[in-house]
């Protein structure tokens, strides 16, 4: 071939700065048309920023973007879309109150006019059917399961003649079978001539689907696009992690962190360590329905001291409600909750914390920390809430204790007066650990404790949870990352529609756990 085809998408020395932070630094990469390209890297590597630059949502500080050989105006979604670049977001960007048909229409361009409800459904029915999305077009987004929402977001992205489709971490929210369905869909798009760029962070997924792979680390391109036949899982793992950190991790830990192999969890699981009476004992707990999520439906759950129990499940199957029920933030319709032998069914959170309940909440920056308060105020909240309201505080003494504790947890910070919002994600999580993982902790709820953290910080959190377990604390770990669950849990409990749908012990089998995550019939206990 004398004339190679023009790249479908090419970034020329793209740099993006947000204030002092450089998210992308001189990234130059070009993607050949008609293939499936993977972009991988740890959290904070700049993958999402790269995708948003291509989609026009982020204006690069420097550099240019070409689509099919033509330079586009950067920083304008309409320009990127006109050139045929579409982006499917990690946590989908669909207005929850919209119907499926409305969702399709609001993103469309071209002829609009006044529609009727029926006409709109007619208009989009064939489009969705052509993409194998089976759904009633008059249902609302908020009522649909996550797999369907993703199908709709992909269909939304393809309402126009998209030539480059970028999917930002599409597998993060899916069950194993959902991932298979997604990959089948992606392969069909490739057959239709669409260039697909998948942002992923698990090596086995990359090896299973992509034609080429590009690795980002710390905002720079490390390597790529490499043809997939030329890279081994081993090499890819080292490229993602980086040599400096790779040395500090044992091989097994590294494999779990980058999802090299099918997770089996051979290193976890010491249920024999867990002895003694249950720290947490939930008996037939159901909650009243409320606006914040689906209700629990007869949950039985026991956690003993010295064990980590992982909660698996597709997001939105009652995990948040479970945490709210244990922390007295949801109304129980029936059932009882015992903490360390005491019945706390009607007890407020303060009483439960006094017994030894600790929470690393889902939303680090909303529930976990007050970003506009200082580190010592955030750190001392636990003790201050337990003392009487009229207890006199000496701030200097609290600050000293805070400094000691934060140093022990190797938090990188200037001084304890700085605002919590000025810390990176990993350091912010360490502040929460310093507060919640103390020697009086008897039950620690760790809700998505590593979400958004880079590999070093993730390994740190895992280590902290293991140490707390070895000291005899009971740990409830909620995660949507099966590698994480399988690596550090002693038992895994699967939640589906607010119920417990299976319980597993190591060695974990991804197929049966995956089946329990989606299929009500797979009620098994291995």
């Amino acid at each position, binding site marked *: 071939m004398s004339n190679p085809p023009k790249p479908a998408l090419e970034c020329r020395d793209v740099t993006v700065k947000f204030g002092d932070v450089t998210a992308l630094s001189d990234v130059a990469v070009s993607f050949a048309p008609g293939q499936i390209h993977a972009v991988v890297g740890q959290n904070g590597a700049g993958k999402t920023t790269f995708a948003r630059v291509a*989609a026009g949502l982020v204006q690069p500080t420097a550099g240019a973007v070409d689509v099919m050989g033509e330079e586009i105006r950067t920083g304008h979604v309409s320009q990127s*879309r006109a050139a045929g670049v579409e982006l499917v977001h990690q946590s989908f960007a669909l*207005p929850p109150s919209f119907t499926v048909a409305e969702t399709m229409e*609001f993103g469309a361009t071209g002829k609009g006019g006044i529609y009727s409800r029926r006409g709109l459904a007619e208009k989009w029915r064939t489009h969705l059917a052509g993409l194998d999305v089976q759904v009633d077009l008059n249902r609302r987004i908020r009522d649909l399961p996550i797999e369907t929402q993703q199908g709709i977001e992909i269909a939304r992205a393809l309402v126009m003649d998209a030539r480059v489709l970028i999917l930002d971490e599409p597998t993060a929210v899916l069950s194993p079978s959902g991932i298979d369905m997604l990959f089948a869909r992606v392969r069909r798009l490739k057959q239709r001539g669409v260039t697909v760029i998948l942002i992923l962070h698990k090596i086995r997924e990359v090896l299973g689907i992509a034609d080429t792979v590009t690795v980002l680390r710390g905002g720079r391109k490390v390597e790529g696009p490499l043809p997939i036949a030329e890279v081994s899982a081993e090499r890819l793992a080292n490229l993602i992690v980086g040599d400096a950190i790779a040395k500090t991790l044992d091989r097994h830990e590294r494999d779990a962190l980058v999802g090299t192999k099918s997770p089996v969890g051979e290193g976890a699981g010491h249920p024999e360590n867990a002895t003694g009476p249950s720290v947490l004992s939930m008996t037939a707990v159901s909650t009243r329905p409320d606006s914040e999520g689906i209700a629990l439906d007869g949950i039985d759950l026991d956690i003993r001291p010295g064990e980590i129990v992982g909660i698996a499940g597709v997001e939105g199957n009652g995990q948040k409600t479970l945490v709210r029920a244990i922390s007295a933030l949801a109304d129980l319709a029936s059932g009882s909750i015992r903490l360390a032998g005491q019945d706390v069914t009607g007890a407020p959170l303060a009483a439960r914390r006094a017994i030894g309940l600790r929470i690393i909440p889902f939303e680090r920056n909303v529930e976990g920390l007050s970003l506009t308060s200082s580190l010592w105020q955030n750190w001392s909240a636990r003790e201050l809430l337990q003392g009487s309201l009229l207890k006199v505080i000496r701030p200097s003494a609290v600050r000293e204790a805070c400094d000691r504790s934060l140093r022990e947890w190797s938090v990188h910070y200037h001084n304890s007066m700085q605002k919590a919002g000025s810390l990176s994600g990993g350091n912010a999580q360490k502040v929460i650990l310093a507060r919640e993982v103390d020697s009086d902790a008897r039950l620690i709820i760790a809700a998505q404790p590593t979400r958004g953290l880079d590999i070093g910080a993730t390994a740190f959190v895992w280590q902290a949870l293991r140490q707390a377990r070895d000291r005899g604390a009971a740990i409830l770990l909620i995660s949507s990352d099966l590698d994480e669950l399988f690596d550090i849990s002693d038992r895994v409990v699967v939640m589906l529609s607010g119920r417990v749908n299976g319980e597993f012990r190591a060695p974990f089998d991804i197929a049966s756990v995956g089946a329990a995550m989606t299929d009500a019939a797979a009620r098994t206990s291995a």
Partner: protein
Amino acid sequence: MNEIIIAILRSGTPLIYVTLAGVIAQRAGVWNLGLEGLMIIGACATIVGIMLTNSILAAILIAILMCVLASVLLWFVIDRLKANPIIAGLGLTGLGVGGTALAVQSIFGSQASVTAPFGIPKLGPAFGAYGVLSISVAAMPFVVFGIWVLLRRTRFGLRLAACGEHPFAARSVGANPSRMRLVALSIGGVLCAIGGAELAAGSLQFFAQGMTAGRGFMAFAAVIFGASHPVGATSAALFFAVVGALGIRAQLMFGDKIPHDLLQALPYLATVFGVWLSGKLRGGAKAASSFAELKDQ
């Protein structure tokens, strides 16, 4: 019976126009608490416009211009200066109520109410008993229908709602939430001007200080009660007007037996009831989250 219907339409029409302005703003993600101020600016500008130009058309155009300018100011303060939308809206209300009093004082040299020689044209004898109503009352159902089509049956309406509900989703398809809010508040400005004009020059023909007497807030309550839906909010506004008209009726029938103040308070009590009911029905969660997303921008 006709009398009651006429009374309801007279008091309900200005409220409905202003309610529609609130609906559009709400759908775009702005809690517009400046409705009261916009309405009184519209009322004052209409009467002053009639006095100065001697033309009702010119007067209404002046009112529209003033209200749109005030709405753009609100947008600028919220969107560009990043002020809290609630406080900015209340500020606009203060500006409207105080500014119109100042304008009347400086133009006519007294704080007394200003009476115009004529108002908005009436429907005329061809409509029988209803001929005393102004043409903007007759136009009201068509405007409600038009806004319903715009918001619920066009892509523009979908994008507007997306901007309020999920600004990031709107941005992802190329819409500009900031510009959409500007458009929404500007359309609202036009509607508030017509609402204010109808209040001052529809059945009456005068402007007095503070004459909106909380109708803008009542309209805002109708937006919440009606779940930001154009027809729902219009029905809520109409409900408040019905309660008000029945209150006046009751006053005439029972005279002194019921405290006069209590009957006058009826529409306001109905408003409180309506907001309570809507909170009961929907938990009020959606509105709170859309406000949070607006701040996130």
